[in-house]
């Protein structure tokens, strides 16, 4: 767990504090995304956590330990750090770059070799191919992956990521985000993630911290913030399509009416026999989608086929029905402050 307590940073000769009285807590295994316009202080917060910047006032606790009392160099070896410009050592091979922190921690050579192999496989690069390459011989996406692998090398419980996917093109970025979320599902690291891209924040974050001019203006789960922005500033950051963003976060299975609870009328569009027969028959006459898909995908299908409900399938069986009304009432309910 990471706890920030009334954290402030005032740079000499600055007009206003870079960070002002910021307090929040990040739970173990969560991704907390700091988002805000440039100059809002989000990177400063990040760098105070590994003490690249020392706070002017306030405290930071990692696992109940105040980091002000720790050796910054040793502290940093226990915190993974990924930055937008990556900062791989151009004179070292991929192997040596990833081996950096394990070497500092005096791991055995064999342990380091094994760890690098595991990491390269994890990030989807072929160890045979990249092992002895230099950063200059890699593509931007590959370098970014190596940067993540280097930060993960000594298996730190905490990761700090400063716009880690900001320097690659949108297609690669999307790919890296998906990949990272997949890895995170297994790793369960506590991650502080900084971005200026609200879409990235919504996608990556278990929690989102919205900052403006050094202050924390709203902190919460993405769905809560999207449904109930606390101020005009937050609403502006979220954009005109915040409801659509919300629809991307919620899976169809959470809103569907399970088949056994469907009334005759509700399932009217689908004949019983077809419902039971599963996906193939549905495919032939009706529209369907899988339980894991976001609500947005369900809307897409409804709009394209001019339907007001779709069948929801798990593996090859229809398990429920999702109607247009279910979605709209869910949203208005959320905005009124209710929970699912």
């Amino acid at each position, binding site marked *: 767990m990471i706890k920030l307590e009334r954290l402030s940073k005032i740079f000499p000769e600055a007009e206003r504090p870079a960070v002002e009285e910021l307090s929040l807590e990040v739970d173990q295994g969560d991704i907390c995304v700091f988002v805000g316009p440039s100059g809002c202080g989000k990177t400063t917060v990040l760098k105070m956590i*590994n003490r*690249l910047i020392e706070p002017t006032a306030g405290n930071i606790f990692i696992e109940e330990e105040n980091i002000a009392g720790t050796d910054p*160099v*040793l*502290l*940093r*070896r*226990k915190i993974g*750090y990924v*930055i937008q*410009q*990556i*900062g*791989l*050592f*151009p*004179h*070292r*091979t991929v192997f040596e770059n990833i081996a*950096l*922190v394990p070497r*500092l921690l005096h791991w055995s050579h064999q342990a380091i070799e094994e760890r690098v192999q595991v990491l390269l496989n994890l990030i989807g690069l072929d160890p045979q191919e990249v092992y002895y390459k*230099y950063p*200059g011989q890699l593509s931007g996406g590959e370098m970014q992956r190596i*940067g993540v692998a*280097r*930060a993960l090398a000594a298996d730190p419980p905490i990761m*700090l990521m400063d716009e880690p996917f900001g320097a690659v093109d949108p297609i690669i970025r999307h790919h890296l985000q998906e990949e990272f979320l997949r890895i995170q599902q297994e790793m369960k690291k506590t991650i502080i993630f900084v971005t200026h891209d609200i879409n990235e924040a919504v996608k990556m974050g278990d929690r989102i911290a919205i900052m403006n001019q050094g202050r924390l203006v709203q902190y919460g789960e993405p769905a809560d913030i999207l449904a109930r922005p606390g101020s005009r500033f937050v609403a502006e950051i979220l954009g005109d399509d915040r409801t659509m963003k919300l629809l991307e976060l919620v899976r169809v299975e959470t809103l569907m009416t399970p088949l056994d609870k469907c009334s005759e009328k509700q399932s009217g569009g689908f004949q019983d026999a077809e419902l039971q027969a599963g996906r193939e028959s549905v495919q032939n006459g009706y529209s369907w989608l899988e339980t894991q898909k976001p609500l947005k995908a369900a809307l897409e299908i409804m709009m394209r086929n001019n339907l007001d409900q779709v069948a929801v399938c798990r593996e090859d069986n229809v398990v429920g029905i999702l109607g247009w009304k279910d979605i709209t009432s869910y949203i208005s309910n959320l905005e009124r402050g209710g929970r699912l």
Partner: protein
Amino acid sequence: MSLERLLEALLVRSGPHALEHLRLVSLALGCALAIAFPLGVLFTRERFRSLGLKAMALLNTGQAIPPLAVIAIFLPFWGLGFRPAVTALVLYSLLPIARNTMAGLGGVPSEVKEAARGMGLNGWDVFWQVELPLSVPVIMSGVKTSAVLTVGTATLAALVGGGGMGRVIFAGIDMFWPEFIIAGTMVIGVIAIVFDRLLSLLEIFLVPSHLR
């Protein structure tokens, strides 16, 4: 022009003076490196950066003073001989080394340094493992520039009794023997090339393989 005199100058007269010349240059270069490199490192540290700019301005101005004048400056204090000659040469060869050390260290990408610190390298490790290896090519080119410059300038050492190939050349000027001037110049040229080649060899050992 006589071939006989040219051969005499090259084979008989040049030998000892060439060795003197080598001594002058090696010593001066060694001292210059020992002074300029630490200075260059110091002036790129955060704390002394503003001082570095001033020092650089001073050194730049120093380079504009003709070498003859630098050598002459020490005459009243140190008199004639090997020592004042070396001192003048050291001063004269400081700048390229200091400047390239600063340029090399300053050119190390800040994100690489930041990542290194963020990973948990201490200041010492960041310098030895990151900054120095990445700036060696630039620093070495400064050393080479300085070496070639010093080989040429060391000719003037003969004027203050410091010896070196200047003796052969100035003898040629005094006696109206162009053979001596040509021979002296040729030997100096060869010495300059030798220095450059030797330093290039050194560079191969020092520069990380991938940056060559």
